[in-house]
């Protein structure tokens, strides 16, 4: 067996990837292909009927726009917050571990738990509202739940730690001697960031953006629990859910899922395309 393999120049080590390949085939490729085919077999009408319906029914196509309106600002906010905070924590200090732990705690909480907490804290009769009224800072009721803002808040709470952890590992991977070298050449803190850190971080920033975006785009529980699922936060995953489990139209649900996947793919491909033009080599300063 191994002699044959050697003669055929087959690397028997490749067999080690077999379990992963089987897993992918069974649990990703096959269901995906099944859904793809299913989406072209509508209950009635021609093979494109589901897609025609989606893009002609305002109740449906608006969910795509709403999802973009939610996920793009949330992603920009999460990555935009994660970058400076991770940058500030790049040096190992005794505080770094504490702050990192504090920032990462929400990742351990489920979306539903976060939503529960938000309802008690941010609701119109919640602690925040009562506290502000007590101090006479703001007397009206605070509306941060059951609307668009509630979902944004929930996605930031659950998505930020993720973006932060990724950015922290990219930032700390950059040799700090580079910034020190820049300093001896006359670069102040801003120039060190702009000319050294930012270009070296850009590829990591792109990856973080993609992952954070995909995570935010597939929002579902918080859109229902702390959003307004009948209108302003009727996101695309909700449309797929309704088709599948309220109308029992699996074909339509598959079509919505395909559209959702395609929309995510477009953004990811666009961001990774921008990344192609950037330096992606090692981030060290030389030998040693």
């Amino acid at each position, binding site marked *: 067996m191994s002699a044959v393999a050697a003669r055929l120049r087959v690397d028997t080590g490749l067999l080690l990837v077999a379990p992963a390949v089987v897993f992918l085939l069974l649990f990703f490729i096959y269901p995906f292909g099944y859904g793809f085919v299913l989406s072209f077999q509508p209950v009635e009408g021609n093979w494109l009927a589901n897609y025609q319906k989606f893009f002609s029914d305002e109740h449906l196509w608006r969910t795509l726009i709403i999802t973009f309106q939610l996920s793009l600002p949330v992603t920009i906010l999460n990555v935009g917050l994660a970058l400076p905070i991770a940058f500030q924590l790049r040096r190992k200090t005794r505080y770094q571990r504490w702050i990192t732990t504090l920032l990462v705690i929400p990742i351990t909480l489920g979306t539903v738990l976060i939503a529960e907490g938000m309802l008690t804290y941010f609701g119109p009769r919640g602690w925040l509202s009562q506290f502000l009224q007590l101090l006479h800072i703001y007397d009206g009721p605070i509306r941060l739940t059951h609307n668009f803002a509630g979902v944004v808040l929930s996605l930031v709470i659950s998505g930020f730690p993720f973006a932060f952890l990724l950015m922290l590992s990219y930032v700390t991977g950059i*040799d700090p*001697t*580079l910034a*020190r*070298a*820049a*300093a*001896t*050449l*006359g*670069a*102040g803190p801003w*120039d060190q960031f702009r*000319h*050294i850190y930012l*270009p*070296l971080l850009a590829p990591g920033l792109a990856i973080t953006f993609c992952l954070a975006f995909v995570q935010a785009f597939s929002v579902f529980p918080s859109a229902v629990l702390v959003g307004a699922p009948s209108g302003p936060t009727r996101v695309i995953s909700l449309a797929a859910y309704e088709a599948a489990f309220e109308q029992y139209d699996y074909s339509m649900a598959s079509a919505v899922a395909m559209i959702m996947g395609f929309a995510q793919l477009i953004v990811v491909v666009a961001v990774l395309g921008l990344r192609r033009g950037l*330096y992606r*080599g*090692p*981030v*060290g*300063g*030389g*030998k*040693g």
Partner: protein
Amino acid sequence: MNQQFKELRLAAVSRHFDNPSGVRVAALHELTLTIRRGEFICLLGPSGCGKTTALNCIAGLLPVTGGTISLDERRIDLLPPEKRGFGMVFQNYALFPHMTVQRNVAFGLMMRNTPAAEIKARVARAFQLVQLGGHEDKLPGQLSGGQQQRVAIARAIVIEPPLLLMDEPLSNLDAKLRLEMRAEIRRIHRELDRTTIYVTHDQEEALSLADRIVVMKDGLVQQVAGPEDVYAQPANLHVARFMGYRNVIALNVGARNGDRLTLEGSGLGLEGTAKQEIAGPHVSVAIRPEDISVGAGPNGIDGRVESVEYGGHVSLIDVRAGENVLLHVRTGARVKMGDQVRLTISPQRVLVYPAESA
């Protein structure tokens, strides 16, 4: 910022840090030194002796915790590195991996808002100086270690800093390249007529480059002197050991005649020269293997050759003498293992220091 200076004064410069168990440790303790314009200074010592700490304090990369640094009359130890305008060559070169070699070298001038035409001319001149033409558009990762090192030097000197700081710039190179670059660095220093502070743990490098050597150990300065003095007249036993005095023997003082001491013990009798105040009867004697010659003469020791390490022009031999004292000798004489030999040493080259407190 780029003006030449008359002297750089370090006054009791210290750098402390808290170690993990919370104890305050001095990485650098009260370094006092005045460096004149045009000097080539080497900070020499084993790893952990505080030499790189000293360099980082001068560059502004580490804040000092005591003392002052001034450039002529201007105090600079509170300025950030970008306001000091010193050039620095880092041990791992710290070239910006995402910029071409050309942009790496131009970076310091860009930060100074130098006009583009002038940048171009000065970068070209710097490339000429380090003899690295034709690689301008490559990324640092595409260059060899020696080439990267030249880029690092070009990047530091193109801003024409009044003071050039180098942190073991040759330690990542192979032996042959190291010798070549050593000569280059000396040439560049001469041509630019600038002041250089160079950190190294290689005594040979320090001896060949420096006008003055600062020998350090455990954050303390041991000796500041010219290469010849550091080599021939080490100020204490630490320096002697570091400078290649491989024979250190514990002996007792017999008679004294000024600096000249008669030493005995371990079955040996020798004349030596005191290099430090000798209080007690116990002393440590340091002798360089090169200073011992094989053959009859005064101030001698008899012994038996125990091993011979052939080294071409000179061989390294180990001689067992007196009561089990092993002496390392570097000699051109041809001897064989087991030979009885007489070793002689000039009393001036038998350096006597107070005994090490064991």
